[in-house]
């Protein structure tokens, strides 16, 4: 693979010495900066984990006072917080279910069918992602107020389905676009109906993509504050609880939930990334 060096270049494999020194410096510098940035990204997580083992002197204190396992042993010492976590899981579950089903149907139609309005619908799906979350929240609030709909649990679910939908479509579409279409065509050539081909061939191959989309939707829903804040009425999700508690001092159990979420997500990544190697047409 060595470039064909003409007779005019006596040293075929090396750039000038100054260039090599510069490259060595750049390499070290880039790696050094990258490690510092990773430290910056991980520092708050370490703080959250440490504070989950902290016994604070009072509610407004954030100092590390004394090591304790009490917070992990009694995660529900603050009743309101646990209720909020349960509420968030309920919202997340419902929103994920609806968004994943509707989004997968859309992604399938958009990649496997040609029809009028296809590109327009593709654009419509992307628009919510390019809109500030704040505007998604306030516009829904304006709609619910104008329609006289009482805000609460169900308005939050409706809002979450809306912004999760786009992410599901994009994720599933990417998976479908990378899949070998000839398998489905072979099934249909063997007289499978489109439904049979989808059910027996496409769906099993698509499942990892759908699972990834569902996980993404759940995490977006579970963590959403801005859209929820405008549409929750008196319903309190976990982020809403943390927001309210931040003024009065947060109980250490909030850090337990934060750490547990982190551990759970890490576990899921470890489990799913072991066998998977996405096919990449570039190599």
């Amino acid at each position, binding site marked *: 693979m060595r470039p064909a060096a003409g007779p005019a270049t006596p040293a075929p494999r090396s*750039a000038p010495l100054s*260039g090599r020194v510069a490259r060595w410096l750049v390499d070290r510098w880039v790696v050094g900066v990258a490690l510092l*940035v990773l430290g910056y990204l991980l520092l708050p997580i370490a703080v959250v984990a440490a504070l989950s083992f902290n016994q604070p002197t009072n509610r407004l204190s954030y100092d590390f006072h004394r090591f304790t396992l009490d917070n992990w042993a009694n995660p529900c010492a603050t009743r309101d917080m646990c209720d909020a976590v349960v509420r968030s899981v309920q919202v997340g579950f419902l929103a994920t279910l609806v968004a994943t089903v509707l989004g997968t149907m859309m992604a399938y139609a958009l990649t496997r069918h040609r029809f009028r309005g296809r590109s327009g619908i593709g654009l419509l799906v992307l628009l919510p992602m390019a809109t500030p979350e704040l505007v998604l929240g306030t516009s829904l609030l*304006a709609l619910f107020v104008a329609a006289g709909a009482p805000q609460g649990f169900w308005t939050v679910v409706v809002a979450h389905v809306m912004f999760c939908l786009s992410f599901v479509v994009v994720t599933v*579409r990417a998976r479908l676009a990378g899949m070998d279409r000839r398998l489905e065509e072979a099934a249909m050539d063997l007289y499978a*109906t489109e439904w049979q081909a989808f059910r027996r061939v496409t769906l099993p191959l698509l499942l990892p993509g759908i699972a990834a989309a569902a996980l993404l939707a759940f995490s977006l829903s579970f963590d959403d504050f801005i859209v929820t804040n405008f549409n929750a009425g008196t319903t309190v999700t976990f982020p809403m609880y943390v927001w309210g508690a931040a003024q009065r001092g947060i109980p250490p159990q909030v850090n337990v939930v934060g750490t547990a*979420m982190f551990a759970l997500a890490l576990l899921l990544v470890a489990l799913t990334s072991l066998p998977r190697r996405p096919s990449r047409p570039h190599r």
Partner: protein
Amino acid sequence: MTDRSAPSPASHRTPAARPAASVPGGGPGRRRVLPYLLVLPGVAWLVLFFGLPLVQLAAASLYDPTGSLSTGYVFAWAFGNYPDALATYWPHLARSFGYAGLALLLALALGCPLAYAIALRAGRWRNLLLVCVVAPMFTSFLVRTLAWKTILSDQGWLVGLLRDVHLLAPDGRLLATPFAVVLGLTYNFLPLLVLPLYASLERLDRRVLEAATDLYADPLRTFLTVTLPLAKPGLVAGVLLFFIPASGDYINAELLGSPNEYMVGNVIDSAFLVRLDHPQGAALSFLLMAAVLGLVVTLLRHTRGEGSPALDGGAR
């Protein structure tokens, strides 16, 4: 696994060449309706809960400002709401874009070396490092922002250290300053900038870089004339994914700043939820959206034809 999913022969587009399409139960008539049935629920959801609300928000921004939520608002083409809102709250709008812009510059300075190192220098550590990049997303947004509040607090070790080395005045603080807000914004949205940038750097052909070196380009020149143009789609996607949520954010300003650092989001939040001045909140929402949309269109127009991977989904 070099699955080369080559575009299948064009035959499948013509129903005549495709026996499956005319099998009983899947007739050509049904095939034409099917895609519409599949997209209908999703499109209906987006029209009802994304499109219609925007129309309603536009209407609300033109309500007669003398109305109130309890007495009812009257639609009055009150375009004056926009200059009124701008006159009172332009500092907040300016702060939103100022802080988000500063955070973007900081994120580029931190994110470019990081994405470059992971894509081209990490070797077998690559996947582990990628997990570290998205790790902040694994905990709750609010919980990790509150962790910064702990780190930056007046009694914390960081402020103590900075005071000891005289980088900070003895009574100086980090919390409730613009610095804290910009730091928080940078932190919270940095992964969104790094990931698309990494994706486009990882995909570029290393032999091109080697060729540049072999042709006596120094590292800086290689970077500017080869790496950067090839990574541009990822860079644009990353900038958009970072800037859109950062400019609309108000959690960092609320938790890490003080009312002096409030951004337009804080004003909109209080207009809708505290002061109950819906016309003003709606007008400010639209001003924010117009500014963001203008930015998106300008950036995408500059890179049209190169395709930004994050925003055109899987449409290859």
